[in-house]
């Protein structure tokens, strides 16, 4: 096999892996949109906030240290302990659940029945708010997230495949972190599906997603379900934050990964969990392959950002509700 073709395959493989990472972010959007019709712009900031919280708890940082120091003239920064990864993750999840409860109690409970664009706007306010709080709580420096995830290309894959091509083929490059992300994503999706199929709360969640009023009339508490959904979105945000944060350190830019998820959502549909996964894979492969075949050689590179959107747009022209979205039925 020629090296060019093999490298094409390598690009596809890496595109699939990148797609999984996009899908991880997109999942959070889908969960909330499905259950409450809210397009949650703050999902990216939630990923940032949860990763900041995790890094902060692990290193024993004092929350709001800068503010406290400025007001009281003290000089405190760290508690002086290190929290083990697992305990820190659990504590972070507790924080995210509290956050979910607050969001539901103080914001969206007052906005029930509003138009989608108003709800969308409220999440934008939430994004601003959370970004400010995150900075105030943990500071705006870059934090290293040492949760023990493997990094670097897998030598095993490289060695096993280097014989496939000629001398100028070095074997496939697969990032170990991407492999872990894929496994985690599979577990996460399987867990979410199992949860929604086999538990009482999960079924209630699906009922709410289908029809709020019918769910309410059979005695399901909407408030509880929405807190649950926001907590789950917080969990997904934490996972996405860990995976992306492991690459770049935890920093402000982490909130921008939301932009990577939007074309995935368009393509897969806002309401479908499998759609988010498939959409992520298509976008990941599509943009990487386009960059490899056309973007870098002919267009001067850096085409991925817009190509993802154009690809999604092309899909939408043929299926306006996305690949797996609920069919839009319009009645007068």
């Amino acid at each position: 096999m020629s090296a060019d073709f093999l490298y094409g395959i390598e690009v596809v493989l890496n595109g699939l892996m990148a797609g999984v990472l996009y899908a991880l972010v997109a999942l959070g959007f889908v969960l909330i949109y499905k259950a409450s019709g809210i397009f949650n712009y703050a999902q990216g900031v939630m990923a940032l906030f949860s990763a900041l919280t995790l890094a902060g708890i692990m290193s024993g940082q004092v929350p709001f240290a800068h503010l406290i120091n400025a007001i009281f003239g003290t000089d405190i920064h760290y508690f002086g302990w290190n929290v083990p990864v697992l305990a820190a993750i659990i504590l972070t999840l507790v924080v995210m659940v509290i956050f979910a409860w607050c969001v539901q109690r103080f914001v969206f409970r007052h906005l029930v029945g509003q138009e989608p664009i108003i709800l969308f706007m409220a999440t934008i306010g939430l994004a601003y708010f959370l970004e400010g709080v995150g900075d105030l709580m943990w500071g705006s420096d870059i934090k290293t997230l040492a949760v023990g995830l493997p990094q670097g290309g897998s030598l095993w894959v490289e060695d096993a495949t280097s014989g496939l091509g000629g001398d100028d083929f070095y074997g496939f490059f697969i990032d170990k972190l991407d492999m872990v992300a894929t496994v985690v994503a599979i577990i996460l999706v399987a867990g979410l599906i199992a949860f929604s199929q086999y538990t009482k709360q999960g079924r209630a969640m699906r009922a709410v997603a289908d029809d709020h009023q019918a769910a309410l009339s059979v005695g399901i508490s909407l408030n509880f379900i929405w807190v649950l959904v926001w907590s789950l979105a917080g969990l997904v945000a934490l996972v996405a934050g860990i995976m992306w944060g492991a690459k770049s350190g935890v920093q402000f830019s982490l909130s921008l990964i939301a932009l990577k998820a939007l074309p995935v959502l368009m393509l897969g549909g806002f309401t479908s969990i499998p759609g988010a996964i498939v959409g992520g894979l298509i976008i990941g492969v599509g943009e990487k392959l386009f960059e490899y075949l056309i973007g870098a050689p002919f267009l001067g590179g850096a085409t991925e950002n817009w190509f993802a959107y154009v690809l999604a747009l092309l899909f939408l022209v043929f299926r306006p509700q996305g690949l797996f979205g609920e069919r839009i039925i319009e009645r007068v």
Partner: protein
Amino acid sequence: MLYREAGDFKTTYVADSQTFPLKLDRIGFWVTMAVAWLVIPFVINDYWASSLLVPFLIYAIAAIGLNILTGYCGQVSLGTGGFMAVGAYACYKLMTSFPDINIMIHIVLAGGITAIVGAAFGLPSLRIKGFYLAVATLAAQFFLVWLFNKVAWFYNYSASGQINAPERLVAGVAVTGPSTPAWAQYLICLFFVTLCALIARNLTRGTIGRSWMAIRDMDIAAEIIGVNPLKAKLTAFAVSSFFVGIAGALFFSVYLGAVEVGEVFGIQKSFLVLFMIIIGGLGSIFGSFAGAAFLVLLPVALKWIGVDVMGWPTDLVAHFQLVIVGALIMFFLIKEPHGLAQLWRLAKEKLRLWPFPY
């Protein structure tokens, strides 16, 4: 009592269908215009012009543009930043290619070019709706920014990749370039704001505006009663982009003077203008102004309170700014989901009775 409708009689149709049918509104309008045109230019200084009024006016134009598309025609767009970039780059190319022609004409032409581009990117709206469309317009946003960054022709092959506005005069006074006096900067923006607001106000009251609103309220029903969705949607995209293009041209030539596309016209700008119209009020010209004022003036005011009055560290103030702006957005939406324009309407209702409760 303060705001009355009673006793305001009309004897002709022309009088009844004027822009502000109420006398009180008319007086308010003319007083505002008089202050804006006759008082502010004489008292304005560099700080007020470049930090507050000029950005406010330019954002108001962009917000009016987006409000036509989103508020009146119901098509959510996140491509505003990209379209502003089209206006800016069109203006730059026209300014440098035809230096002898008046800059005012260039700015209007830049709006026209943006209208064509906007209509082209509006085509998918015939198939795609709601948030799917919003995300689809992001394709325009990212593609346009990439294009202006990549193709050197757009920035005249300058080594830095930035575009700089050369000095241009209107009636012998510089309106672009560094030696522009603050009042000239302000007046040219005010001129375009007044023009755009009048056009927008009258368009939205006419046939075309009604067809937009019909599409917004329910496009299938509108189609059945004879509104052509192709025409309505594309005109909304074109008119909206025209205003946004003018805003972009002014933003580049009058306000900033030097622009790098990715930084100035990035995705953040698209979101910012959308925030303005939602906070201000969808489907309201007044709301466009209110929203622009809210998001331009509030951060500056918060910064002034925090840093200059309270003397806090600047980074803490910046973080609090985010927290407060975010909290205020949520608070306003909970209290009044239809924006500042609706608050204004309610205030007028209250004033009608004030000071008597019944």
